[in-house]
């Protein structure tokens, strides 16, 4: 019976996904078809535009276009990039792993650090350690992540040239082994991941701290202390597991912000992920690519929510009973 709850969540996610795909279609038709955008670019003659319209099937009635779109999308045909003439899906496939690397590492670090710091502050509530952590987190929470990125570049790549200022590998170098290449990537990862982690740290810290503060006021904590458990064990074994539950769901909700951050951070560091791809697409007015990346971003958020639901299912016995 608990499996049914999970199946329900997966079904809901698929339905949302379907709506996202449909919405995506209409979103890009909001301002007329994409070729009207091209009409604004210099060097496009009316004949070229007409030809493009035919190419893209934009001369068909809207229902026909919609059918085409649905068929195409569900078979992973997301169109052709206007700039590179490559299939959008190929470009996305190339960029996706880099974004996952950046976002995955950043989220992991931010969750671990944020949670730890949150527990640290909550157990010292009102004291200086708590106030300082709070102020630090409020600051990183309010600061634009790309600004933090720029400052990181300024300090750690220019003033004190410790880390590379951009890209994922040192260009033009032949690597003797995959290990050497991996190390090079790791070196290039430090600053972007640091920017991403700092951006998320504040949020996760605030959530965890507030969750811990709530849990520490519960009666069962006093009872655990009363049984003679030392305080650090009460915190670690009983307070933290209960406090983690809201953190899981809330961080899934904030995943949309993670995606936004990925875009700006990749742009700053020329990190070849989906964010950088989107940024170039904005500049080139390459709508097929924009539409494709937007779709993938939305899918990512849905997926993150689903993972959070699964995690919650595993962690909270009260949910398993449903």
């Amino acid at each position: 019976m608990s499996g049914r709850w999970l199946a329900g969540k997966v079904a809901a996610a698929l339905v949302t996904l379907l709506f996202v795909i449909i919405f995506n279609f209409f979103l890009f038709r909001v301002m007329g078809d994409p070729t009207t955008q091209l009409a604004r670019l210099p060097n496009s003659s009316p004949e070229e535009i007409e030809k493009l319209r035919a190419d893209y099937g934009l001369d068909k009635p809207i229902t026909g276009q919609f059918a085409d779109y649905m068929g195409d999308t569900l078979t992973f045909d997301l169109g052709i990039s206007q700039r590179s003439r490559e299939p959008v899906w190929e470009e996305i496939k190339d960029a996706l792993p880099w974004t996952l690397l950046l976002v995955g590492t950043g989220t992991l670090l931010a969750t671990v650090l944020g949670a730890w710091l949150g527990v640290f502050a909550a157990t010292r509530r009102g004291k200086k350690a708590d106030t300082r952590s709070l102020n630090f987190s409020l600051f990183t929470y309010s600061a634009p992540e790309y600004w933090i990125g720029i400052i990181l570049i300024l300090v750690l790549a220019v003033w004190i040239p410790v880390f590379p200022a951009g890209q994922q590998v040192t260009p033009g170098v032949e690597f003797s082994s995959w290990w050497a290449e991996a190390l090079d990537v790791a070196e290039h990862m430090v600053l972007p991941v640091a920017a991403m982690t700092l951006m998320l740290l504040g949020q996760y810290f605030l959530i965890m701290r507030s969750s811990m503060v709530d849990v520490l006021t519960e009666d069962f904590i006093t009872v655990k202390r009363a049984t003679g458990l030392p305080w650090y064990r009460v915190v670690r074994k009983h307070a933290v597991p209960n406090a983690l539950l809201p953190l899981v769901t809330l961080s899934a909700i904030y995943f949309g912000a993670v995606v936004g951050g990925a875009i700006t951070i990749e742009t700053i560091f020329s990190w070849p992920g989906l964010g950088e791809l989107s940024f170039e697409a904005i500049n080139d007015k390459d709508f097929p690519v924009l539409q494709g990346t937007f779709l993938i971003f939305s899918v990512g958020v849905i997926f993150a929510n689903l993972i959070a639901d699964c995690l919650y299912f595993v962690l909270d016995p009260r949910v398993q009973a449903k």
Partner: protein
Amino acid sequence: MSALLEISDLRVEHDGNPIVDGVDLRIEAGEALGLAGESGCGKTTTALSVMRLLPPTLKQSGTITFRPPGGHAEINIGRRTERGMQLVRWRHISLVFQGAMNSLDPVQKVGAQIAEAIRIHERDLDSNELSERITELLSTVGLIEAVAKRYPHQLSGGQRQRVMIALALACNPSLVIADEPTTALDVVMQAQVLELLESLRERLGLALILISHDLGVLAETCDRIAVMYAGRIVETGPVDSVFAHRQHPYTERLLDGLPMIGGERGIATPIPGSPPDPGHPPEGCRFHPRCPYAEDRCRREDPALREVAPGQSSACHFAPWKSWPPVEPKQPAGVER
């Protein structure tokens, strides 16, 4: 001097405001002491101080001495370190809270919670002995073995309260402090839990401190009763004596509000006014602003708790009271003796 637990001049303050302001209490082995009073009078705080479980914002002072039965050495609770207290907690003194809704860890199985408490104080039990103990404890409170594998949310309110009691008995303490153990339960379950506590007490020779604002509950289960008001004890004595011959106006007003079967019918009159703010207690007797019998002396002098009848003490200038003059509902009347 063989009292099981002796509290002497206990004071607890928050930011300089006294919440418990000089409390003296004794409880003998196997005795049931009731602690009564309105919410906020300091009952729970007193209970938590005995186990040194107050939050760090509260400062505790005074002497608390515990003499475990069976010839163990005397324990000076006030002077113990935190680590020292961890040895005393649950092993000698344990706790039952009200509304076991949140008194159990929601993500831990119930049996595991009992096992955890036992293992803190008895390291050498192997897992078989441990699960036998748990089954035994559960059956003592009337629960089947299968309950151990359940989570708290899978049990009913009454079952959870029983688990709390089983948990409290897990290490064979000599004193159990029950803070409003029946408040969140319906009348039927209330009776069952009280009966359970009583039978366990007899069987195991437990001492019990029962805290409740419900005097009916205390009347049933306790040998002696102490009434608290504004952080102080205002009356103590054997339960029958206190109920039959109250020696403090506050006790009188509390009991007056209790409908007695066979007594007069009428609308209970609540005590007008509200308890004093801990930061600004009234001059003189703390109760005088709400006392219908207050006189000049009461406004100036703070009465001490003193013995006014065999085994019974009161903190009222005019105790011992032989009878209680009738009181106009809204106005304090003059005192007649």
